């Protein structure tokens, strides 16, 4: 729509204020979104390098490029960086920050200052966590299981405190999203008209607000035990090591949905736009997100089937976990049904969305193998689990981040990325991903445990395939990065709505003006009115 009139055309959020300082003190949700983009991308680079180091070490039996001690650290930092600094903030704090307010027709989030503070919390948390590298590095794995992690080591303390501080970033973002969604919707934007990306972020935000404090307390207890020797988790001091696992997973299981729900939201946007078709089952998708968020609080024990928890607990957790499978299946069927009789455009963002469906389906069905308690006893803590959660987290979340970036890039920067190169990046990432992680299902089934520095000679063949795949993924992301940089500098001008999207962000100029819309939009219909 013609909200961008000629004489405003050159004023947008990017040139509204100038200079580094204006960025570091910005209260504009779009700029904060971009600050998150840059930080998360940097952390992704760091986590990715650790990933490639892991795979390179595992290329051959025995010591390949590092010692077992170094390996334990590389593995820990890969996991911790990717989970806490990349995937958790990835979609909500970057794409969500940028687009949630615009999609509901708001000028900004409800608490812009808290929004900026959240970014500094992430930076500070990351800083503290990475300081641990100067103390010899933490080698506990990203799960910090006690009593192994009780070593009075400054490295573990730094990691724990870093995670604690970064957690506030997540809480503040979640708080902002909940309030923004409730309070700042444009006239006519009823809850039944908000885009599914907003629904997904909203469900995620609830988990962020409710679950993250538990993680905060858990890592504080861990830090206290490391610093003061208070026996919460150490049996020698009367503590209970398994209690830590309960605490940890009480957060970290819902956190899995902090990581994946926003991805679901992105996919709903991509599929509708590129099939140019209204979403099939809006209500089902919206409420299944909420259902997943709710049930996710009661399934943490599925990480502990062999921890020594009671048989009864195991059965209850297995049952509840199965229930999460239903809303997840519903979403996949809805997306597929949306394609039916659509007009499908296979641009790069759509390829990422379809790739997501492919990988996420595999991640999803293998989740049932793990929820089934008898098979989980075999697969638990083997490479099967590693493969499963990479199919979900990387195949799911990272694919949708990439799809989301290429989709919203023209809106964010007013330029288009080269679609052909973006598709090349997809092909490398998609193929590389399957080459890397499919063999890991087989390795896990054969019995290779996770977090293994070395393995039996008969596992070498599959490990080699996996390592080669990881290099393909690396190439894919480099191609993607170059495509993005090229788009920033040389990309074709895009206009307000290059893909023919129907949600509100496509009605404003690209890049959007300082407060998103020149006149507050009035909403009269649902988000996907392709008639």
């Amino acid at each position, binding site marked *: 729509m013609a909200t961008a009139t000629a004489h405003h055309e050159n004023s947008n959020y990017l040139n509204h204020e100038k200079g580094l300082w204006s960025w570091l003190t910005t209260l504009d949700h779009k700029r904060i979104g971009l600050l998150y983009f840059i930080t998360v991308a940097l952390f992704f680079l760091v986590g990715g390098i650790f990933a490639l180091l892991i795979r390179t070490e595992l290329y051959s039996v025995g010591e390949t490029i590092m010692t077992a001690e170094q390996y334990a650290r590389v593995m820990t930092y890969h996991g911790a960086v990717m989970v806490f600094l990349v995937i958790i903030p990835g979609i909500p704090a970057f794409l969500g920050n940028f687009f949630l307010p615009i999609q509901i027709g708001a000028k900004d989030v409800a608490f812009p200052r808290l929004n900026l503070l959240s970014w500094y919390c992430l930076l500070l948390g990351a800083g503290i966590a990475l300081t641990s590298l100067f103390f010899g590095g933490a080698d506990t794995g990203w799960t910090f299981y006690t009593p192994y992690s009780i070593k*009075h080591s400054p490295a573990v303390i730094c990691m724990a405190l870093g995670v604690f501080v970064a957690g506030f970033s997540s809480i503040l973002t979640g708080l902002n999203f909940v309030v923004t969604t409730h309070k700042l919707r444009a006239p006519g934007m009823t809850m039944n008209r908000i885009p599914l990306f907003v629904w997904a972020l909203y469900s995620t935000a609830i988990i962020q607000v409710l679950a993250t404090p538990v993680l905060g307390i858990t890592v504080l207890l861990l830090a206290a035990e490391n610093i003061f020797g208070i026996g919460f988790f150490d049996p020698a001091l009367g503590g209970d*090591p398994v209690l830590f696992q309960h605490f940890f997973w009480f957060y970290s299981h819902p956190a899995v949905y902090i990581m994946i729900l926003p991805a679901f939201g992105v996919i709903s946007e991509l599929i509708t736009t590129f099939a140019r078709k209204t979403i099939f089952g809006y209500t089902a998708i919206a409420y299944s997100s909420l259902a997943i968020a709710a049930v996710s609080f009661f399934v943490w024990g599925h990480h502990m089937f062999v921890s020594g928890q009671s048989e009864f607990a195991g059965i209850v957790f297995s049952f509840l976990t199965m229930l999460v499978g239903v809303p997840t299946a519903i979403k996949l069927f809805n997306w597929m049904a949306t394609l*039916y009789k659509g007009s499908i455009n296979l641009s790069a963002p759509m390829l990422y969305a379809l790739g997501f469906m492919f990988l996420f389906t595999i991640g999803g069905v293998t989740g*049932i193998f793990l929820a*089934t*308690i*008898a098979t989980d006893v075999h697969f638990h803590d083997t490479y099967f689990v590693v493969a499963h959660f990479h199919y979900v987290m990387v195949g799911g979340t990272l694919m949708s981040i990439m799809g989301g970036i290429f989709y919203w890039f023209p809106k964010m920067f007013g330029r288009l990325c080269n679609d052909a190169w973006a598709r090349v990046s997809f092909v490398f990432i998609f193929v590389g991903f399957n080459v890397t992680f499919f063999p890991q299902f087989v390795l896990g089934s054969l019995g290779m445990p996770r977090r293994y520095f070395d393995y039996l000679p008969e596992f070498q063949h599959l490990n080699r395939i996996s390592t080669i795949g990881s290099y393909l993924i690396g190439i894919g992301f480099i191609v993607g990065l170059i495509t993005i940089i090229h788009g920033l500098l040389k990309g074709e001008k895009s206009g307000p709505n290059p893909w023919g999207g129907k949600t509100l962000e496509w009605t404003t100029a690209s890049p959007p003006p300082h407060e998103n819309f020149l006149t507050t939009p009035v909403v009269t219909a649902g988000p996907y009115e392709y008639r």
Partner: protein
Amino acid sequence: MSFKPLVLLSLLLPGVAGASTFMPPAATVTAGEVDSVYAFLLITSLISFIILIGGMIFFVFKYKRKSATDKTAYITHDHTLEFVWSFIPFLIFMFVFAWGWKIYHDMRHSPEGALEVHVMAKKWDWRFLYKNGKEVTSGLDDKGQKAPATMVVPVGKPVKLIMASEKISAGSTDPMDRPVLHSFFIPAARIKQDVVPGRYTTMWFQLDQPGDYWVFCTEFCGSGHSAMKARISAVPVADFEKWLAAEGTGEMTLADKGRALYSSKACAGCHSADGTRVVGPTFKSAWGASRDIEGGGKATVDENYVRESILNPNAKVAAGYPAGVMPTFAGQLSDDDVKALIEFIKTLK
């Protein structure tokens, strides 16, 4: 459309139905059962995948954008369809849930009369202790390489493991040398159980095929984690008996060692072995009995109960007996002593 996937399916299914596709050969009855669930899951997953992704690919080609002004159907929902694709997965999930539960129940309950072996995990090695005092540790092979400890078990007989986590060196006072989590995993038996510091955990299996099997540690425990392996050698019963009685057997059985400690550590002053009541409860027929606990609740006298009673006597006080009378023996009895006392109490039927 429906033709190609069907051909593919018919090619794949027989392979999948071979039950242990991708799995190591199953060596126990339980493993066979796990493999049946696994095969079922594999087939249903494959079918779901073909429906979802096959459907997706089909639609992508069929409804490829033809012009920039394509009109599309405006379909918002369909209650019947939505019900079907929620309910069918739900049924399948409930079915595998129940099936998995049944097998898990069997995994958790060892049959009566299983051969009991104590298993000790430490950074980064396994150690096995049989009731007759025989101990198996890792050693060196002919090439001077570390040879993992090999637990020998009889084929076709249930074996129950009582597992504990230990310090690297038994008497160590180094605060850094603390027992950590490990996990005992036998891929061929499809079974694993965490070894948790400060308590005993148990698991059981019955190997039906003679042979050598791997044991891996599956709970990250430091840089030696992947080197923390053991072997299980399943041999015919007669060979097992011969092996058990042969060289390397301890001077006394665990129960005899326990009996000696019972006298030397003055347990006998407060606990009788013949049923008479002294200061504390008698040990006779104590094993497996259910105790009322002071302040409410019940506890079964099992490995963890006895261990706790010895190391932390006031954690659970047997009803009708004075609290604070029994001294703690933490620090005075080694982990192996506690096991010996447990085995002694077990024998007092």
